């Protein structure tokens, strides 16, 4: 057997998403050739129309489940995949499109589309883990390419990925930045959001938007109480928790509590 046939097969799948997380894989410019040496990219439509049939050793799944067709398709992806890793906020929490879960989707369709009867969609946008067993969830909107490489490397070498579940604050302070909430009273979800981005937004003087979803033990209630106490209006607080990870349980619970 030659080396090509021994290489693990990687497949990338897209569900309801913006493609930004898949793009993070293409964005691994310096490492892409090394990656192609170690792994056979069997299905990655964003990069190539070449397609090698399954089964696959590792499937990276981007996007959420929003249509009856995708609900079936994810079952098929799972059946063909030895390991299934979801990438990004859509796949792990339903994404920003999960804001539909709070409203009547039929109403939107009637307003937006000239022929609403052409649209066949589900009432909710849901995470992949709500439908099939997921081996690992990689957070982010989009995911961080270093973390993606870490997950793939860990998979290749049969070890646990070094992905921390603590707060963005720890990354922020390791970078030596001063807390925006403390110095400016800026609303920042850093203390309740999982690290991984390297605290990008605080580095550009913006509070954390919570792209990486809740930490391992998120105390959203305490943070919300503090922000309200410091003058934030309830509507803004609800919006703060309802962005890319609006349907992740901790953020959903907190925003619902104030509505």
């Amino acid at each position, binding site marked *: 057997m030659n080396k090509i046939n021994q290489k693990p097969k990687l497949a990338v799948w897209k569900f309801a998403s913006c493609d930004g997380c898949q793009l993070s894989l293409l964005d691994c410019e310096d*490492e892409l050739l*090394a*990656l192609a*040496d*170690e792994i056979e990219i069997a299905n990655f439509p964003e990069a190539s129309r070449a397609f090698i049939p399954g089964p696959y050793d590792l499937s990276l799944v981007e996007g959420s489940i929003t249509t009856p067709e995708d609900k079936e398709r994810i079952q098929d992806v799972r059946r063909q995949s030895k390991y299934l890793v979801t990438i990004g906020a859509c796949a792990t929490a339903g994404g920003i499109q999960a804001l539909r879960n709070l409203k009547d989707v039929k109403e939107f369709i009637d307003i937006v589309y000239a022929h609403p009867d052409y649209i066949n969609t589900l009432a909710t946008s849901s995470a992949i883990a709500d439908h099939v067993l997921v081996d690992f969830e990689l957070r982010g909107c989009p995911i961080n390419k270093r973390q993606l*490489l*870490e997950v*793939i*490397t860990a998979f*290749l*070498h049969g*070890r646990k990925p*070094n992905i*921390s*579940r*603590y*707060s963005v*604050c*720890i990354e922020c*302070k*390791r*970078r*030596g*930045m*001063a*807390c*925006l*909430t*403390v*110095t*400016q*009273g800026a609303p*920042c979800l*850093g*203390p*309740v959001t999982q690290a991984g981005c390297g605290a990008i937004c605080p580095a550009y*003087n913006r509070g954390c938007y919570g792209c990486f979803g809740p*930490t*391992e*033990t998120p*105390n959203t*209630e*305490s*943070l919300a*109480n*503090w922000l309200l106490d410091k003058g934030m209006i309830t509507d803004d607080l609800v919006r703060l928790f309802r962005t890319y990870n609006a349907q992740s349980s901790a953020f959903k619970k907190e925003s619902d509590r104030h509505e």
Partner: protein
Amino acid sequence: MNQTQQSHCLDPDDFGILLKILNEKGYLTVGPTRRDGAILYDVLESMYDLPIGWTDEQEAGIYRLKRRDDNALFGYNVGPHSWKKYLFPSKTKLWSATKKGAGFEIDGEADAPPTYAFIGVRACELHAIQVQDKVFMGGIFQDPIYTGRRQDCLIVAVNCTQAAKTCFCTSMQTGPKVNDGYDLVLTEIIDEARHYFVIESGSDVGADILKELTTSPAEQDDFQAAATHIENAKKQMGRTVDMTDIKDVLYHNYDNKRWEELEKRCLACGNCTMACPTCFCSNVEDVTDLTGEHAERWRTWDSCFTMDFSNIHGGSIRASIGSRYRQWLMHKLATWIDQFGSSGCVGCGRCIAWCPVGIDLTEEVKAISDSEEGDRNGTHQDN
């Protein structure tokens, strides 16, 4: 007065000369500078990198910069950084290795760290450095990274002449006056008539540097003025902690209801541990590249507020946030004394100011202490 202890007066305009002398001697001068809405520690290329004419206002969870109505060079209190960022860096590569046959080979030695001159070290911070000295250099094993950065490091200390509302060094007996462990110490005196420094040396190295500066001899009046200014900091001390029997008080209170309150308030974000000048916990992580040919071992600041910190077989032994806060406070104020012979808290107040929800360690200790008092009274009444 011996050779190492000399006192002089220095004109603030000549402060830049001190930095220049230190740079010429090969020191990398680092100290306070204004950035990101705070006073942080970074490289000082000239005295104009100092936050001249700025001050800060601090409260639990709040820090704001303000203009002063003078041109004080050190007219502020401690900010979010501490000197541990230089002595115990937040992220350090311990070593890297390359696969060779069945084994591996360690790659070349890491670059030597710069020789630092710390400018503007406050009394509480000097105590914090001494606390970390014990941790990293005081035991059977010395941490080579810390030792390598600490041994030739020069300290230009500054006596505090004002205190923040979050300060409580007087309770911890760590300030506001610098007592030992410095090469030079300055007291900035600003009154109606004059703006100058009383500068004193505390080591032979410091005395030699002092000789190179243009100074005038310090008189009795100058010492008096310095003492009055330091007294001012004492008067402004914003917080207090009753350290009487602190160990006993805390050890009696592992099950105090207050921890449940903290369970509700604490975010477990780790900010207090990152800001604390004595917190020394680190995590060691191995990383491999895609090919598996190259591996690196990194040490990063860790926090007892993360779940991984106390993860053992079966999960974290401190699953509740309250238990993690209790671990941190207990260690800082009580078990540290058993472990290292001194308190782990120096009263700088960083954990109070930089907690995003303003949890105040002094308030928590008081609440626990008061409830203990209540219990004792209760017992007394029962008798």
